[in-house]
């Protein structure tokens, strides 16, 4: 396919993959993103080099900083994985956002029921509760698609609103509101229910390791299990699976439940690993950022982990950057978008090549 042609040169689609093209495209994307961010810092009135230095120090400067980076990355890795697994099957689950809430809420509800039970009971209940909550909420969107052919993008976006406001309702002078409290939040969870801290004097909790283990499991599931086979096949040609007798509706339901369960876990880890209470503000946005991470990670579990770590570092470093150089930490969201755009462009470009035509006449 020819895209463009002018006097003796032509841009056309590559017939194969070239790792040289990919690597050089990605490197230039990185450079472009850095340059663009530097301009942004200049516009914000800061010295770009100082800003980058502060960003780096804030995210990797000390054991504590690194631990915080990993903590920030944990929910993003999970929502990225959740989105990636659904997108792999060409199911556009935009609902990781709501499934995070559902997981956190269901886990909170289950954990409240056992109250002050010992820790060895608490953590399984929290983990299973969040998996179930997310799975059920994801399966709801899946059922709407499988049974009534409701477009999954519409269904998941709408369900996001429903669950977010449902939580608000429960927290605003509702049954879950902290007794005597003023904010939209629950009381602190009991100490036994807090996820174990892995490194002393940091906030790094068990959830990070679980997220990595989950990424490894998903990698195996996706590439070496019958279910993963069906997910990849559905993403390429669902019709061929149906001709072979695979029940498409059932597959859609399973994928949505799986995707929702993973997102739900992110919610519970935030509640029991970081905030130690359920409040709506800190859960918001995790799911949507997960979409960016899934796409940056090319829907591959391993790369999603890397993309999640990168974004965790950016988020974590932005605070120090604001303190040191006055660059508003909110700019980090613009940086996230810049990175995504540059990388998308790089992938697109690496599919093409420039070629010189010989002897046209």
């Amino acid at each position, binding site marked *: 396919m020819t895209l463009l042609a002018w006097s003796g040169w032509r841009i056309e689609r590559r017939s194969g993959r070239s790792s040289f093209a990919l690597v050089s495209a990605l490197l230039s994307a990185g450079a472009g993103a850095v340059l663009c961010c530097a301009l942004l810092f200049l516009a914000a009135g800061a010295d770009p080099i100082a800003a980058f230095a502060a960003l780096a120090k804030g995210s990797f400067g000390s054991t504590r900083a690194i631990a915080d980076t990993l903590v920030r990355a944990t929910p993003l890795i999970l929502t990225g994985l959740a989105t990636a697994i659904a997108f792999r099957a060409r199911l556009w689950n935009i609902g990781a956002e709501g499934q995070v809430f559902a997981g956190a809420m269901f886990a909170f509800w289950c954990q409240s029921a056992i109250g002050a039970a010992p820790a060895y009971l608490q953590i399984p209940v929290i983990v299973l509760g969040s998996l179930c909550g997310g799975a059920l909420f994801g399966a709801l969107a899946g059922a709407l698609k499988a049974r009534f052919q409701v477009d999954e993008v519409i269904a998941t976006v709408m369900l996001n609103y429903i669950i977010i406001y449902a939580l608000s309702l429960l927290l605003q002078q509702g049954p879950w509101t902290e007794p005597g409290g003023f904010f939209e939040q629950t009381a602190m969870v009991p100490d036994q229910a807090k996820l174990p801290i892995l490194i002393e004097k940091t906030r790094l909790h068990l959830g990070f390791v679980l997220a990595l283990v989950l990424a490894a499991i998903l990698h195996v599931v996706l590439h070496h299990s019958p279910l993963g086979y069906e997910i990849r096949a559905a993403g390429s040609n669902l019709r061929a699976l149906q*001709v072979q007798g695979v029940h498409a509706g059932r597959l859609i339901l399973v994928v949505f439940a799986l995707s929702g369960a993973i997102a739900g876990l992110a919610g519970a880890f935030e509640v029991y690993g970081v905030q130690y209470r359920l409040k709506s503000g800190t859960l918001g946005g995790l799911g949507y950022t997960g979409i960016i991470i899934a796409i940056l990670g090319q829907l591959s579990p391993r790369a999603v982990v890397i993309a999640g770590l990168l974004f965790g570092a950016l988020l974590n470093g932005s605070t120090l950057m604001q303190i040191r150089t006055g660059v508003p930490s909110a700019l980090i969201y613009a940086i996230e978008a810049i990175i995504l755009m540059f990388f998308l462009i790089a992938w697109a470009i690496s599919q093409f090549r420039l070629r010189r035509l010989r002897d046209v006449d």
Partner: protein
Amino acid sequence: MTARLSISNLSKRFGPVIANDGVSLEIRPGELHCLLGENGAGKSTLSSCLYGLYQPDQGRIVIDGEERRFRSPADAIRASIGMVHQHFVLVPTFTVLENIVVGTGAGWRLDTRAARRRVSELCQRNGLQLNLDALVGDLSVGEQQWVEIVKALYLGARVLILDEPTAVLTPQESERLFTLLQQMTADGLSIILITHKMNEVMRSDRVTVLRRGRVVGTVETGSITREELTQMMIGRQLKQIEAEDRAGSGAPAVVTISAVSLRDARRVAVLDNLSLELRAGEVLGLAGVAGNGQRELFEAIAGVRRTERGEIRLDGKSVANLSAADIARRGVGYVPEDRFRDGLVPDLTIAENIVLGQQWQAPWRRGVLLDAARMREHAARSIADFSIATTGPGERIRRLSGGNAQKVILARELAKATRCLLCNQPTRGLDVGVIEYVHGQILRKRQDGVAILLASEELEDLMRLSDRIAVIFRGRIMGILPRHSASIALLGQMMAGTPLEQAA
């Protein structure tokens, strides 16, 4: 006589693949010129270069003594080249006249009166009965093709490229098309006909044979035999496979279809009270113009589609409540008509596609995971057995040619077909050599006592391979003939809707 169109030393490459390699060719005024070649021989690339869809990397195109370069089809049309694609590009909700004049660059206003005059003049000169005010969606496929041809003429085509024009026609419609083509060439039009059907090639004035992107030769059709042409095309001699005639073997039925009816989404009957019997060790040929219910019949037997009325029995048991997977497990293999849509997963590998549908089943699983090593081994064996041209079991289907992709489906479905094999257009668009191989495989299955249903648009193939031939028209069986009493003429009549009893 000077050439109307001459191509010299034209080359076009796609990455490492050379699709056209120094092709030179001359088309004379008023000549019907055939381009013959296997898939991937470079016919389509060549015609796309002529029509401005591709730009050649090198070479010259000269029309009436003037060198031309096309950057787009618009340039080609301006240089009086017209093309009728295999898939028509018509607007069904527009009238014939509107379809012909739409996008002809007359500015914003259409001068319908002048256009109507010119179009009816064109029809008259070529003896075409076209109602200019009929909606194109109401026309038969053959008539729609005329609209495409008239449109090209209306745009001033003096060289007309036809890409496999008879693939969608009944034998009678093809006959009319050729009469029309002869009339038009007598009128001075030059026609380039792309085809792989030998009987059509033999009706042209000259043939240019392409092989692997190069011209093997251009010959006067009158001075060469079919066998010689085939040899030029594939570079070796071909042995025709013919099944021995043993109609009416009286073998037991494996699949019994009784009074099955089925309607499509628009509630139009696509299968209408249809009954058939597939017998062990017998090939039942299914003839019919595309879109008369063949696909639905195959899907109903394979369990992909539910019937509304009637019953399908496999080895005496009703399949009404069985899924496609259940039916496959009972020994039914299904080769679907549209291989890339229904039969393959393009982003998965050959090894993965060969077990498609069996991903949960015994030999391919080790514990909860897939046994990749065993799948690879199995695929390697299939690649060798079916001589699939590929780099190995790990290659993605997306990168295979149509013929090799079809072999992957055959490897999978033949292995499943221990009782019944359903083949809908198994050789469409395949190279002659591959077709020969596929036919051999089908007959081997017949030897093994498998019941076979074979639909093909190549009536000659059906008449060589089938024990009996059923003709389907609008979802009904027009009649079933033993092979020895079938003829192209008779089958053609039945395909157009005449029941066997009334057909002469």
